[in-house]
């Protein structure tokens, strides 16, 4: 079983939940930027939630399935069609041998996921199929897909139950303009004025954003004494303020250590929303407590592990 790349799109990579636990080697987890959409896609086609999928960015590609497949599209809507017929998202589809899936430019968010029953088969690097673009490791030959690439698919289950992600769940998990954050490890080094600017104003996502980080443009956040610090480990979703006063929110392919002060950190339950930000999107930050953040995380994980509630 194979998937043939006829057009790769803007930036299409093999991703899964990433490789956690290799920080001491300088290796960040990588993995799907919107892991919630990725997991739901896999569940729809009968895969384990962490199977390898294709992550497309802003502009999708076209793919051939010479031996057929069962697929599901989740995340951003890239206006997909299968042999010319529109493909509904968040539900599985049977692709007959030789059919072609064509995706276009995004209609709403940054990333669309293509899950295939059986999963995408690549050699694992440190236990994960995720592509780490910066180092050229993992995924399909350590790089974004190109025209003519042929990807192996895993064996799929015989029976497939038709199902759909419920509207209520989609609404609950939907990307939103406000990202919730907890205090960062250097929050107290920032002045009241800096915090007011950070929480009071909207920021625009810069064109230079990628899987490493979302660069923001907007009001200047004064750093003062917080500017110089000893390099330390940094987390996914950390909001660093650079010496120029602009925030960078670290993404899945983040550097593992850094020396910029962090004013805040995106909460776990909003990390998938961070992964759906597009250049020129406007966002705001909303402060929350560690306890609320944890409660939201547990609520979200409970939902994602409860098929009865997820699907109709």
């Amino acid at each position, binding site marked *: 079983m194979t998937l043939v790349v006829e057009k790769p799109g803007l930036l299409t990579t093999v991703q899964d939940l990433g490789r956690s636990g290799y920080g001491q080697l300088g290796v960040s987890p990588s993995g799907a930027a919107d892991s919630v959409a990725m997991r739901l896609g896999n569940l729809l086609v009968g895969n384990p939630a962490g199977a390898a999928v294709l992550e497309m960015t802003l502009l999708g590609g076209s793919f051939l399935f010479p031996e057929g497949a069962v697929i599901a599209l989740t995340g951003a809507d890239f206006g997909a069609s299968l042999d010319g017929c529109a493909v509904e998202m968040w539900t599985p589809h049977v692709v007959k041998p030789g059919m072609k899936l064509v995706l276009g430019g995004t209609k709403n968010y940054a990333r669309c996921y293509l899950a295939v029953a059986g999963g995408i088969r690549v050699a694992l690097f440190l236990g994960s199929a995720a592509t780490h673009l910066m180092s050229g*490791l993992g995924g399909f030959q350590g790089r974004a897909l190109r025209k003519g690439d042929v990807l192996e698919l895993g064996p799929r289950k015989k029976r497939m139950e038709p199902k759909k992600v419920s509207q209520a769940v989609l609404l609950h998990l939907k990307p939103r303009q406000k990202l919730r954050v907890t205090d960062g490890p250097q929050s107290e080094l920032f002045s009241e004025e800096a915090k007011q600017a950070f929480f009071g104003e909207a920021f625009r996502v810069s064109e230079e954003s990628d899987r490493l980080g979302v660069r923001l443009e907007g009001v200047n956040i004064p750093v003062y004494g917080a500017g110089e610090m000893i390099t*330390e480990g940094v987390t996914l979703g950390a909001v660093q303020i650079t010496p120029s006063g602009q925030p960078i929110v670290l993404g899945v392919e983040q550097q593992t250590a850094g020396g910029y002060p962090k004013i805040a950190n995106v909460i776990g339950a909003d990390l998938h929303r961070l992964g759906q930000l597009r250049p020129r999107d406007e966002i705001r930050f909303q402060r929350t407590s560690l306890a609320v953040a944890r409660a939201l995380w547990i609520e979200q994980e409970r939902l994602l592990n409860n098929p009865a509630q997820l699907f109709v």
Partner: protein
Amino acid sequence: MVRFRAASDQAVLVYLGDEIALAANERVLKLLRSLEKKPPKWLRNVQPAYCSLLVTFDAWQVAHEEVVGALREYEARSEKMRATKRKTVKIPVCYDEEFGPDLREVAALRGTTPEQVIQLHCSPIYHAYFLGFAPGFAYLGDLPEALATPRRESPRRRVSAGSVGIAGKQTAVYPFATPGGWRLLGRTPTKMFRAGRIPGPLISIGDAVKFHPISREEFFELERA
């Protein structure tokens, strides 16, 4: 002294000192080893640095207070651990201008000659404080005071793999072609990160590292090998 601080809703930073110094880094290493020896169920990732350790945990299982409590115990136990064994890594570097575009500038900034810069860079046995930034990127220190130079004002968009750079009192080898703001003195033909069957970095945290100069001919010969 040990300080804890929430880094995110799923991570705690443990500070074991407040300076770039061997003693603090040794404590980081010991805590890292004690966590590796008997990893708690909720442990997701550890990221050591100069004098801190970032601990990411599974928020489904535990909250910050429990993590901090457990880490306190790990830290207390780790103090009794013996100093970790270190290996010595020798790295050949070609300091040719083609590979070290900032060598002359560093010499000029420090009022010395390129030859002297090379000699100074090759003289210490460096300590690998930690790996970070990119896979296999080891922060090595301390650079001789006479070489300490700030980063470039604007980082390069692309630094070739194997490039040897300096920044402040640190030196490092870029394992992969990445953007980078360190001043480049030369390049090594040695692979800093193996991607094969048993992947891993050439330098591990706590290792001793020594650079030695090689000619262009030797560089290309080693690169081919």
